[in-house]
């Protein structure tokens, strides 16, 4: 009877989760998705808690309270820190899966060794490897994004990197095979922690060669792993709700990773094993080209005359927290009857959708945020393209220069606008270390400085002028 009730609750919870994701297809209904998700989670937790085998209620209450104590502050981070928070939550998800797998294993070898069938052992080892790998990898990714001191920001590469990683992985697989076939052997409980250590090490090694520009893809892949570790847990515990929820999370991460890879014209393997940063260093130091700089005053005059302005935000806007100043600029231009649109590249920023969230936070209507494919055919009609801290995603070398490491990547055609203003913090190349051909175009004027400060000056120029005319 109890079993039937809890299974029914799990079924309803699964349906809630599917609806939650379904409602995310438009911002108008998206908040219903959150409520459906909460309803499903609460239902599933209560149904599980009511299980008669549960006797230590105080422990559960304590852990839940602790979860709230940490979770609430974590949900209030500034939106520029959302990529780090997301990576951190993947780490927590992986940790939970790894720990439950560990607990299950040590519990079963003493209490019910017959329970450890080959199928269940495969699932359990998959859960443990994926869980700890995701935990360590996501912690590294979060450290990189947060720019923690002891985590290297630049991609770390060394000779035979892929070979030694593969060796490590092969070793983990061999040990896993051994323990799967002999889960109750006397040496098995000692091999288990070795597998855990290897999974942790592999997670770290997977992330250190990856550069900042690849973070959106990597976060999506880790998202997928976190989901798959929940699926594996579902197989171990024979729980179909876990399998369903994990599969939804896993496929979401996978689809996002595919979108990110397509947006960079790269393959999964290339992102994970390519050490992007390394390739481009070789390219620097080509022929010296010159760019033209412009003052905020001059740029403001051109913006004033424009009738169609496209703003292209990038990670530089997030770093400088310039989104609110950009909103002021947007408002001023709108007031003058200028059409202002935002062109959002799928990999702009450090995670999928990063720019949209920042601009929405600054109160810019989402109807003015356009995807790359929707804005590109309008770019030749644009009077001004204003690049705010974006770099590789507007580099025309992706279209023309076959030797460029980003050749073939779809870009926003900023160079087709009549005038281009590019706001850039320093004169050095961007995160990926590639020279940007856009900056040397004869239509382009550079506005050097911190994105927030430069946009602030533009705003000041435009407000100062409005009363006089």
């Amino acid at each position, binding site marked *: 009877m109890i079993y039937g009730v809890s299974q029914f609750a799990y079924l309803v919870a699964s349906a809630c989760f599917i609806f939650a994701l379904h409602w*995310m297809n438009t911002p108008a209904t998206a908040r219903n998705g959150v409520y459906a998700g909460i309803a499903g989670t609460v239902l599933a937790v209560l149904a599980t808690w009511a299980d008669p085998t549960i006797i*230590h209620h105080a422990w559960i209450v304590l852990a839940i309270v602790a979860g709230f104590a940490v979770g609430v502050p974590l949900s209030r981070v500034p939106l520029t820190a959302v990529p780090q928070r997301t990576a951190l939550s993947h780490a927590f998800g992986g940790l939970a899966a790894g720990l439950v797998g560990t607990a299950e294993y040590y519990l079963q070898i003493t209490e019910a060794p017959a329970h450890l069938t080959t199928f269940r052992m495969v699932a359990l080892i998959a859960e443990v490897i994926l869980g700890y790998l995701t935990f360590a990898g996501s912690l590294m990714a979060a450290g990189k994004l947060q720019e923690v001191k002891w985590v290297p920001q630049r991609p770390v590469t060394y000779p035979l990197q892929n070979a030694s990683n593969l060796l490590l992985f092969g070793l983990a697989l061999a040990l896993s095979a051994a323990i799967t076939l002999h889960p109750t052997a006397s040496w098995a409980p000692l091999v288990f922690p070795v597998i855990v250590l290897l999974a942790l090490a592999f997670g770290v090694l997977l992330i250190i060669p990856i550069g900042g520009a690849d973070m959106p893809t990597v976060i999506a892949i880790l998202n997928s792993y976190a989901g798959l570790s929940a699926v594996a847990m579902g197989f171990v515990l024979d729980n179909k709700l876990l399998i369903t*929820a994990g599969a939804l999370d896993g496929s979401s991460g996978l689809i996002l990773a595919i979108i990110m890879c397509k947006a960079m014209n790269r393959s999964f393997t290339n992102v994970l094993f390519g050490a992007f940063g390394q390739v481009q260093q070789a390219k620097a130091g080509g022929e010296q080209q010159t760019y033209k700089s412009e003052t905020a005053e001059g740029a403001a005059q051109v913006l004033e005359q424009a009738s169609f302005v496209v703003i292209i935000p990038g990670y530089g806007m997030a770093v400088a927290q310039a989104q609110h100043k950009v909103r002021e600029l947007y408002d001023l231009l709108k007031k003058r009857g200028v059409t202002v649109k935002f062109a959002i590249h799928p990999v702009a920023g450090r995670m999928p959708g990063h720019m949209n969230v920042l601009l929405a936070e600054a109160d810019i209507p989402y109807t003015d945020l356009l995807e790359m494919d929707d804005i590109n055919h309008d770019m030749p009609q644009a009077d001004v393209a204003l690049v705010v801290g974006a770099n590789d995603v507007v580099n025309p070398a992706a279209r023309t220069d076959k030797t460029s490491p980003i050749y073939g990547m779809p870009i926003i055609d900023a160079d087709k606008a009549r005038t281009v203003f590019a706001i850039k913090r320093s004169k050095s190349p961007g995160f990926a270390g590639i020279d940007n051909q856009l900056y040397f175009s004869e239509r382009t004027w550079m506005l050097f400085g911190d994105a927030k400060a430069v946009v602030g000056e533009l705003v000041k120029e435009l407000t100062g002028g409005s009363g006089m005319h």
Partner: protein
Amino acid sequence: MDFWSTVFVFVLASFIGMGVIRRVSRLLHTPLMSLTNAISAIAVVGAILITGGDYPLRIRVLGAIALFASMTNIVSGFLITDRMLKMFKTSDKRDGGSHS
């Protein structure tokens, strides 16, 4: 345990996931990630069974840490998703809002 029925659930749920996620607005990919994160933290049910069961202490300690980690994801995941989604407004809603 019925091996095949769990595999069926996994494969069919993945297809549903692909179909549903593909139609999610690109505007919402960041909130989507925090939402799926909160949803997959339903792994909390596994942690509850281990923490609350009549098991040795060290097993329950592992379970309690897992329960804490999942709960953190559930709470922060749903809260931050809602916080982000609240910010997405159309222009008419925005003009009627508190901003001048």
